[in-house]
């Protein structure tokens, strides 16, 4: 009883009181489903199958993931999204660099390019269905430049272009957000460096290569790696725009269908586990990459953190 009133005891109580609910929710909605997922992946079952009616099938679901036409082929589509994501990062970096120099109306440009990030996925689906429909927005705009509309492909049906059309919507949605991220990183590079460089007569390109890029390389690398794992789990554009028809179904679209439409819960779980394993491998590679490649970059990281702290202090 006495111990509970001591400082140590009080500390114990507050730690338990403040962590029990968040941890409970985390267990209930993340780790329990995760464990269930691994378990279900070895069974043939539907959502409503009672536990005693489930059929244990061993590794069959996993074998299916790799041999079924629809599952593994879908994973190849992530290539499109990966290319799109890398383009998006390059574009974001380019625009962020421009905006970090003196620009008239910079804030308005920034705002216009950022706003798509705040639109819901389903609204984006409608906007782009409308945008790509034959004879509608995109076709009319290209028509203004004298391009014959009849010769244009059906953006969402033609299998030669439809995946690129969807990737473009994803670039449209996220490039502004990436840009804001990079602007934040560029701003944290010491201002004096630019002034010194300008005095030395370095042009903008040289400033970019020698000052900006080294200053933000950690965050750029991180985003490149994140975009690879992100493209493996590409889901929203095909889900809301085409519903996965005409060869646009990415891995998660197929998985969603298998889980919630045909209710092959075991197979869907196996698909999810396979993808999680791939993502973990990438994450571990990323950790190793940072450990060995950026060993000498610790110093710049520190100054970045330090300058952030300074800014925060000012805010208070």
């Amino acid at each position, binding site marked *: 009883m006495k111990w509970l009133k001591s400082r140590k005891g009080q500390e114990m109580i507050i730690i338990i009181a403040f962590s029990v609910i968040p941890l409970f929710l*985390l267990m209930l909605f993340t780790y329990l489903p995760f464990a269930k997922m691994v378990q279900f992946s070895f069974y043939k079952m539907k959502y409503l199958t009672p536990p005693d009616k489930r059929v244990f099938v061993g590794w069959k679901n996993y074998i299916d993931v790799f041999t079924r036409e629809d599952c593994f082929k879908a994973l190849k589509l992530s290539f499109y999204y990966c290319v799109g994501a890398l383009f998006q990062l390059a574009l974001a970096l380019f625009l962020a660099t*421009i*905006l970090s120099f003196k620009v008239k109306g910079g804030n308005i440009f920034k705002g216009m390019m*950022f706003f798509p990030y705040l639109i*819901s996925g389903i609204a984006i689906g409608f906007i782009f269905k409308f945008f790509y429909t034959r004879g509608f927005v995109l076709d009319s705009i290209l028509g203004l430049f004298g391009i014959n509309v009849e010769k244009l492909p059906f953006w969402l049906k033609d299998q030669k272009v439809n995946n690129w059309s969807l990737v473009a919507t994803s670039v449209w949605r996220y490039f502004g957000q990436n840009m804001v991220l990079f602007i934040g990183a560029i701003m944290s590079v010491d201002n004096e460096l630019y002034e010194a460089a300008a005095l030395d007569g370095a042009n903008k390109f040289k400033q970019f290569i020698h000052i900006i890029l080294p200053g933000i390389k950690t965050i750029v690398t991180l985003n490149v790696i994140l975009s690879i794992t992100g493209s493996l789990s590409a889901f929203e554009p095909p889900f809301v725009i085409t519903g996965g028809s005409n060869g646009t179904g990415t891995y998660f679209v197929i998985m969603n269908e298998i889980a919630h439409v045909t209710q092959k819960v075991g197979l869907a779980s196996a698909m999810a586990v396979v993808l999680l394993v791939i993502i973990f491998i990438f994450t571990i590679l990323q950790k190793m990459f940072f450990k060995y490649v950026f060993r000498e970059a610790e110093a710049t990281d520190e100054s970045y953190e330090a300058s952030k702290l300074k800014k925060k202090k000012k805010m208070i």
Partner: protein
Amino acid sequence: MNKLKKVEKILFNFGKYFSLVFFSLFAVVPVVSCIFTAFKTAEEYQSTSVITPPKNWLNFDNFIRAYKTADMGRAFMNSIIVMFFVLVVSVILGTQLAYILNRFEFMGNKIIRNLFLFASLLPSIAMQVTVYKIMSTLGLVNHLYGYIIMMCGTDVISIYIFIQFMENISVSMDESAIIDGASYWSVYWKIILPLLKPAVVTSCILKGVSVYNEYYAANLYLMDKSIRTISTSLYTFVGPMGSQYNLICAGVLISLFPSFVVFILCQKQIYSGITSGAVKG
């Protein structure tokens, strides 16, 4: 030499503004064409090109019709209820967890941090395969409160925002309060939480926008028409109404109007939230 420099500067400036204008157009054209179309009458929509502005900018018929067909008044109400509870609960849970993780050294500290970090690696769409099973076992499917409980869990990004901010609040303040006889609870409630206000605002805006826009889980767990949120209410337009784009565009614009207002009012917090949330994530 001087002349060359001047030419270079002009070219550079031209390139700069050209790229900015081009990509800003790239960003706004899809939305602007939606705005044009939303103000058009049915005949006008049939007869004019989608990129010509409407004749009458005050034709709100489509908006009224979309609002009624998709029952958006009700959907707004539901979205507000969901956002209110999710934000209040997740701010309280998030700041409390950040408080103990930042202020106390204890055995599980590192473990808790890693548990949350690891959880952020799991793609939520994949998790829904089995979360759905758990939700239905607990009887939480098709109830607004079930959806709210699922969304309440705090996430690693807001914890990081809070922890980062708390690192700048001096520990000596806590200590002097403790010496004066305050409990840890009152330190959290009377000192930490008020000082965390800017971080709370940032995380509320970011989380608020993402909750408002969330539609995958909402679609999965809120099937009844009466409990649809704003984003899922747009599903009304899938199907028979699928080609009446003047109506659909109006619905889309109604749904994104609140985000637009928040964006105009809180640009700074949104940008800073994105930057600070991403540094460690």
